[in-house]
């Protein structure tokens, strides 16, 4: 199962990103493990200073903005 993490201090854009990924997974019928990461040390541990950022299976794939729908679908299916 794919593990996807949304990194962010809990601002609105992080929330939107989290929901977009959950929704995309549901539509694709894929089960994923989705987690919000708000701990600042962990976020910076990925070298990220601009949130929201997305980590798929421990690999950073996106940072600094709400991702586009194609991107989100790509991560969910992979």
């Amino acid at each position: 199962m794919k593990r996807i993490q949304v990194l962010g201090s809990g601002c609105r854009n992080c929330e939107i990103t989290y929901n977009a990924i959950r929704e995309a997974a549901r539509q694709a019928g894929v089960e994923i493990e989705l987690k919000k990461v708000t701990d600042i040390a962990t976020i910076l541990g990925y070298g990220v200073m601009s949130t929201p950022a997305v980590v798929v299976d421990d690999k950073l794939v996106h940072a600094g903005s709400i991702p586009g729908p194609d991107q989100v679908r790509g991560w969910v299916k992979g």
Partner: protein
Amino acid sequence: MFDSIGNLVAYRLLNLSPTGQLGPALQFFVMDLAKIFSLLLVVIYLMGLVRSLMTPERVRDAIRQRPDWQARGLAVGLGAVTPFCSCSSVPLFIGFVEAGIPLGVTFSFLIASPMINEVAVVILIGILGWQLTALYVGAGLLVAWFGGLAMQAFRPERWVEGYVWQIRLGQSLLPENDRSLRARHRYALGELRTLVGRLWRWVVLGIGVGALFHGYVPESWVLEHLGGDHWYGVPAAVLLGIPLYANATGVIPVAEAMLGKGVALGTTLAFMMSVATLSLPELLILRRVIRWPALALFCVLLALAFMLVGWGFNWIAT
């Protein structure tokens, strides 16, 4: 053109009198609403198209390990062109500290970033003309430069929360950006959606306040108290601006109305800077990384700097 849209709605459709209070207020509201939103849509889209992603990560890499004056110059310049959401200021602050960037330089960045940005600049030019825009930007850059220097003189390191020094940044391994036109178009549309979604409330609020000021505040009162003849106009404007918070773009219509009624130039600029830069939410976010004495000092120094800007311009104008 936008002027006539305002006239059409306020005086023709609603049949209000141009000499009353509600008429001019509504005319101002409609005119600025049309003008600012057209400008916003165009600017944000074009900027999204041409901007190769200026991320805080890149700013940090550009600034680190440079002599102080170069680092500060870059911090102020990049702060002015990089928009970042205030929810990023904590990771940004820690990222800068971890890179060994002096705190004073970080403060220069934190001052420049909310005060000056490309969207506000284009709208300023559209509403107030390029001369006033140049004055605002020039004064803003100076405040950011010297504000950061002044913070440094107080050794703010002692007020940074202990845990900040422990955090280590991982190597950022972001994939390269897609540079094709299609990807940039999509990025620009995304920017349009997020930025307009974030800005519109501030802009409508700013236009509303500007319209009320334009329609209901008597010119004679403004000229007597805020016309630049009294020293207290500037500190009053700055103090009023600290608790008030609006995005740099939202404060522009207010400034437009103030200038239109004869508020002195320096007083208006000081007010704009105070509203755009100092805000309680921003301070509360920064409180997670730095203790109150440093934040209080930050406010006092900035307030003083804005007053100097205000008095300076009022003095030059007379």
